[in-house]
């Protein structure tokens, strides 16, 4: 057993037992972040805060929600929305955060793509991030089932049907996932479990992994410059703060993060109180009815681009294209053959690739919402083909890219 001196204060007492001073140094005060960054580098903190909001508001919803097909809708729309004090606030916060978190995830992803933050040792940052994206998607989908409104039911019906895998007709698999022939009680309770237990656990674990993957390669910077972190940290600690290319996580980076978070929170709470329909679809305020499909059904906005890749094709090729879209982003670090870690603006053809990809995904998103008729179908089809084409040409154009 180690030797313990009598502690002079609580901090010292804790430090003897938990090494809190070392922890604080390693995790915060001497966790070095490049100085050459912009507000896009704060999206990680914004995501952490949003996840915190989802967790806390979800805990309060969980105390009144009833996962029963007879009572789920009323427990949400009557008990929580009309009866429980501030129940409406938790629900609005939860629903809006669930939507906004995807906006931030997409900004976070496109920032990574633009600055090449997935290369040269940062591959696992990207892959763990993509795993988070997939689990967040599953979390969002399972949560969407719980109010048991018309959109919950029909989204559950349509998305689980994807698992029949087209002409393979794995109907047994679909029924297994539902525990019923249609989405029913077993389906609701198991998605409830996934939403409040298994997936949040996975997300928390993956967040830990994501942070861990940052530790060795360090955070990228605006110019993709390779920084000698030890050397620069020495400069900083010697008091040469202006010249050092690095800053402390706490308080330097954190203070900038918090300012960005404050702007984000103003935007977010404005949506929570006054502009929430985009995240709380009116159609889902009609109770689930298995004998009546709403005239327009569509996923939440953040799934629309991949939904649109599925839609314009015949059933089997559509499913293949959809499967392709789900996994292809994982392979980005290996499909980008260029050794350059630099902003897209300095990378020739990749610059074009980036902006075409961004615009193409927005086009897919909008077409995914519109009814699949006439010109919208054609635009959607072209955009889906461009999406697939972009991934095919990526290795070719990046291979030809000149070193910068």
């Amino acid at each position, binding site marked *: 057993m180690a030797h313990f001196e009598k502690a002079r204060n609580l901090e010292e007492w804790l430090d003897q037992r938990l090494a809190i001073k070392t922890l604080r140094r390693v995790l915060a005060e001497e966790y070095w972040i490049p100085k050459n960054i912009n507000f896009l580098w704060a999206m990680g903190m914004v995501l952490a805060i949003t996840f915190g909001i989802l967790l*806390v508001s979800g805990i*309060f919803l969980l*105390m009144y929600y009833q996962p029963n097909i007879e009572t789920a809708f009323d427990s949400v729309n009557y*008990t929580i929305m009309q*009866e*429980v*004090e*501030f*129940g409406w*606030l*938790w629900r609005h916060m939860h629903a809006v955060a669930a939507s906004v978190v995807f906006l931030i995830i997409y900004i976070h992803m496109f920032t990574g793509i633009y600055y090449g933050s997935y290369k040269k040792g940062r591959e696992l940052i990207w892959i763990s991030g993509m795993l988070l994206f997939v689990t967040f998607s599953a979390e969002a989908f399972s949560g969407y089932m719980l109010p048991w409104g018309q959109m919950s039911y029909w989204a559950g019906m349509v998305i689980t049907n994807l698992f029949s895998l087209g002409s393979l007709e794995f109907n047994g698999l679909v029924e297994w996932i539902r525990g019923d022939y249609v989405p029913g009680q077993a389906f609701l309770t198991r998605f409830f479990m996934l939403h409040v237990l298994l997936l949040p656990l996975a997300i928390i674990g993956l967040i830990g992994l994501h942070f861990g993957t940052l530790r060795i390669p360090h955070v990228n910077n605006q110019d993709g410059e390779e920084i000698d972190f030890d050397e620069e940290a020495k400069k900083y600690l010697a008091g040469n703060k202006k010249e050092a290319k690095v800053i402390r996580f706490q*308080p330097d980076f954190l*203070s900038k993060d*918090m300012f960005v978070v404050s702007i984000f929170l103003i935007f977010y709470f404005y949506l929570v109180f006054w502009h929430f329909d985009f995240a709380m679809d009116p159609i889902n305020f009609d109770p689930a009815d298995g004998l009546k499909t709403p005239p327009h059904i569509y996923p939440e906005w953040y799934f629309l681009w991949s939904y649109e890749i599925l839609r314009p094709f015949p059933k089997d090729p559509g499913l293949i294209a959809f499967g392709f879209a789900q996994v292809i982003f994982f392979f980005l670090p290996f499909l980008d053959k260029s050794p350059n870690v630099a902003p897209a603006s300095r990378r020739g053809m990749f610059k074009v690739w980036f902006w075409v990809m961004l615009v193409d995904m927005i086009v897919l998103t909008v077409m995914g919402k519109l009814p699949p008729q006439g010109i919208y179908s054609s635009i959607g089809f072209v955009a889906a083909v461009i999406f697939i084409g972009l991934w095919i040409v990526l290795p070719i154009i990046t291979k030809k890219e000149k070193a910068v």
Partner: protein
Amino acid sequence: MADNSRRDFMGKVFGGWAALGGLGALYAAKKTWDPLPSVKAAGFTKVDLSAAEPNVLNVEKWRGKPIFILKKTPEMVANQTDEETARDVIVGNDHFLICIGLCTHLGCIPAYRPDKHDFKCACHGGEFNASAINTAPPPPSPMVIPPFRLDGTTIILGEEGPEYKKMKEAGVIA
């Protein structure tokens, strides 16, 4: 150095303001746990006393708890002390015991013994007389009289009527 203190000061001000927001969230969280309006609205129960048989215990439910209603026989009334009579709810010439049927020891429900005119709690052997006053330990106090209001021969549990207020002033409700 001046810069340093300004820096620390701003950090503290910001941290304090953020903590204030946390308190606001805690307030909302506290309110979220309050009983719902529907629970509170359901907190009133009407019972008609006119059909009660003497020396037969009736048990009603009020706010989820058992309510003992016992009409006393004239002999029971004649033999009881003033202290016991002060706890009676009197409707016309009839004397009633009305109380929350939970033992004041740990909340079990005592059973009525009509032959002995008393209550016995099976959990730890506590006893109460026909006015629900504790007569054998461990219960430390009589069973509690719930707020009530009389309206003819009906009693409304959950509202404080003049008879209840009088008992409360006399200090006999528990």
